[in-house]
């Protein structure tokens, strides 16, 4: 949405098509809870935000990109305020900021604990005033159209009618979000199936740093519903079965009654999730019906603080867990939340493939490195959505109309969809079975701790699942809102993305941020201070190359928390 507005403002003569498989206000940004980081407080500085981001990302962030990001984030958040976003305020009516994990200053803007919801609705509603923005709501993109080395549109299915048709364009921006659904237990909505990553990969653009997958330390068991980091920023504690704040045993500082920035419960997500695994190994977690959990304790905050600052946490716990955090402990466990990697872009959202741009979780600029800090992803989608929109608008303004030869390509794609899925009568494999096996493979092989052996096994399993996918059985041949067709296409996207994650993880023989190898336990800056770039070869196989990290001011150092 931010990119669409940026295009409309850069060149009002361009026609903008927003193509989305769901209505835009259903997009997964809606679920983001805690907040959006941007330096605004008098005691804060851009350099401190940049340093927190870079050290939080275990020095895999491109520092030039981080510099731009921290500079533009407050401007973008302010712009959203002018568009009506109901940011929480101080008693004087100024923007209020809260603490967040891995940040040394309070700089996270928030709209209670429905920040993503308010941002998305503000952007969507504001976009309605731009008449050059035309929406293709509930259109499912199946392919990028590439000709003459340029991306010149997409093929999409209009779900309501089942019509399969090309949408030609001088430039395409992917804003499709992440791929959490390749794992079994995730905060991600059902729509987060890595579509944009798989589409770009198939079209020849590389995926970057796909091995870096973030576990959020506090998800509700079974549902995977996120309990926001803001719960800890407001003073929540993580306790093991003995009621002990166990993070003190993991080099994250000493427990204080009040929250301390960059310490204990306000450490970075990768370290907290890893501490959970160790705690389970020590037998100090709590057994629950869905596996081991620890407890998040908010009781000492009291009803008033909980209702004012994190009301959604209370609502979610009461509705889905049947517990009231005012009086009871919340069972939590790490849950797949975010992928740091994505389609390789430069600082303007441009991919190496002409005409193709990407922004948000689908992209990897990279500002998140090996571990994203909480509250950096919302400003990221604003800053880089706007930059990609402006860059794509300028590019499109200089391009000729798309080639008519693309229509033949689109026709081929329509025939492929009909042959392989809609008209398919044979096939023995159940779609949901392949999906479940893929998810289990990923959890076993590419979870919080990984090994060469486990990753190799996962790669073999995924190859096997790709084979079995060819034999998938289709029950639904209808054109009208065929959700079996979209589910099978999503599965094909996820299988490609899962393979990319595993291949990159296997080759990265070190431990950095969210990528922890039990067989290579240290960070290896000699060999791996570099981004993985995963390309698809023309025969369908994949290769991984490396691109040095851009270091401008901060040389790689130790990640220090709690001291």
């Amino acid at each position, binding site marked *: 949405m931010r990119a669409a507005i940026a295009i409309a403002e850069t060149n009002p003569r361009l026609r903008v098509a927003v193509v989305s498989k769901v209505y835009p206000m259903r997009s997964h940004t809606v679920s983001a809870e805690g907040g959006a980081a941007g330096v605004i407080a008098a005691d804060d500085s851009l350099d401190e935000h940049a340093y927190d981001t870079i050290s939080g990302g275990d020095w895999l962030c491109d520092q030039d990109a981080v510099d731009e990001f921290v500079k533009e984030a407050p401007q973008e958040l302010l712009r959203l305020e002018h568009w009506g976003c*109901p940011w929480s305020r101080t008693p004087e009516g100024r923007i209020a900021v809260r603490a967040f994990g891995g940040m040394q200053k309070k700089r996270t803007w928030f709209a209670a604990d429905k920040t993503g919801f308010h941002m998305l609705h503000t952007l969507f509603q504001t976009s309605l005033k731009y008449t050059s923005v035309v929406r293709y709501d509930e259109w499912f993109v199946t392919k990028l159209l590439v000709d003459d080395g340029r991306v010149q549109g997409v093929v999409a299915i209009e779900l309501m009618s089942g019509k399969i048709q090309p949408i030609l364009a001088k430039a395409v921006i992917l804003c499709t979000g992440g791929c959490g659904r390749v794992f079994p237990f995730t905060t991600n909505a*059902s729509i987060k199936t890595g579509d944009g990553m798989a589409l770009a990969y198939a079209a020849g653009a590389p995926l970057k740093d796909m091995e870096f997958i973030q576990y959020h330390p506090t998800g509700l068991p079974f549902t995977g519903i996120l309990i926001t980091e803001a719960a800890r920023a407001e003073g929540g504690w993580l306790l093991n079965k003995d009621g002990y704040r166990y993070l003190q045993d993991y080099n994250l500082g000493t427990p204080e009654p009040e929250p301390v920035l960059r310490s204990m419960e306000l450490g970075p997500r990768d370290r907290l999730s890893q501490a959970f695994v160790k705690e389970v190994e020590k037998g100090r977690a709590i057994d629950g019906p869905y596996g081991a959990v620890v407890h998040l304790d908010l009781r000492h905050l009291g009803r008033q603080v909980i209702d004012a600052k994190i009301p959604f946490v209370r609502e979610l716990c009461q509705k889905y867990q049947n517990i009231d955090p005012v009086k009871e402990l919340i069972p939590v466990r790490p849950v797949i939340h975010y992928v740091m990697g994505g389609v390789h872009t430069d600082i303007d959202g441009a991919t190496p493939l002409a005409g193709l741009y990407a922004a948000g979780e689908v992209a990897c600029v990279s500002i998140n490195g090996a571990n994203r800090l909480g509250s950096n992803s919302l400003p990221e989608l604003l800053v880089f959505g706007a930059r990609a929109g402006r860059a794509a608008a300028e590019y499109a303004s200089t391009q000729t109309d798309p080639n008519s030869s693309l229509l033949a390509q689109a026709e081929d794609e329509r025939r492929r969809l009909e042959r392989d899925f809609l008209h398919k009568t044979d096939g023995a494999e159940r779609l949901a079975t392949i999906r479940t096996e893929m998810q289990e493979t990923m959890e076993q092989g590419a979870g919080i701790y990984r090994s060469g052996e486990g990753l190799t096994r996962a790669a073999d399993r995924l190859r096997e699942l790709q084979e079995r996918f060819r034999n998938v059985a289709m029950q639904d041949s209808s054109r*009208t*809102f*065929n959700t079996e067709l979209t589910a099978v296409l999503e599965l094909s996207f996820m299988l490609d993305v899962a393979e990319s994650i595993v291949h990159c993880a296997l080759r990265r023989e070190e431990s950095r941020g969210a990528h922890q190898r039990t067989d290579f336990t240290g960070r290896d800056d000699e060999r791996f201070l570099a981004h993985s770039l995963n390309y698809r070869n023309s025969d369908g196989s994949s290769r991984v190359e490396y691109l040095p990290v851009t270091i401008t001011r901060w040389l790689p150092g130790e990640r220090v928390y709690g001291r």
Partner: protein
Amino acid sequence: MDDRITLRLARYRPEEEAEPTFEEYEVPCRKDWVVLDGLNYIKDQLDGTLSFRWSCRMGICGSCGMTVNGEPKLTCETFLTDYAPGPVRIEPLQNFPVIRDLIVEMTDFMQKLTTIKPWIVRDEERPLAEGEYRQTPDEMSEYMQYSMCINCMLCYAACPVYSLDPKFIGPAAIALAQRYNLDSRDEGSGERLDILSQHEGIWACTFVGECTEVCPKDVDPAGAIQRYKLDAALTSLKSFLLPWGAR
């Protein structure tokens, strides 16, 4: 062995049948399963042709509204055990054309949304360099409730006026108009009043408040509508008394 429960689902396949029919499926009735879990069980294990919308399964994306035993509900927060021993009747939301199975068409709402100008309207936009608009927590609380709408359409499904007159702009859209009208940063309430008063229907709302009752986010659209009526009445009274001065 899990308890089981029967879901009686409205099916409609427009390419095959002229009228909706019902089909029954038996699903596990687990303690923490919501209706949506039951539907996904059917889709994954029993019948891949069943169609319904869902996404976040945490009550915030607004996709999964359906009629459960006659009441409009978000199926991601409606627990199966509350309906034990069953059967549970699940139908698409009422008052909308059905596209297929449990999926309704909402293009009408999307068009209505644009007509009420749901964005900040100002004569002069504040430059970014001047920082944020000041807005105290009290000023925020004026409109916050109306900003919580997730566009789930339950209020339209419950609205007796909308069921008779689809031209009625409807509860969620009016609540959203009020959300901006009551925002201290906005200067567009006059324009929105003009737009809303062109639409009939609003005067037919009898404040029975079904919309507010079914709202999963406590937005209180009925309150917004009453408030709007009062504003509209006052404005027309002012324009009668002060023909040049009312806005």
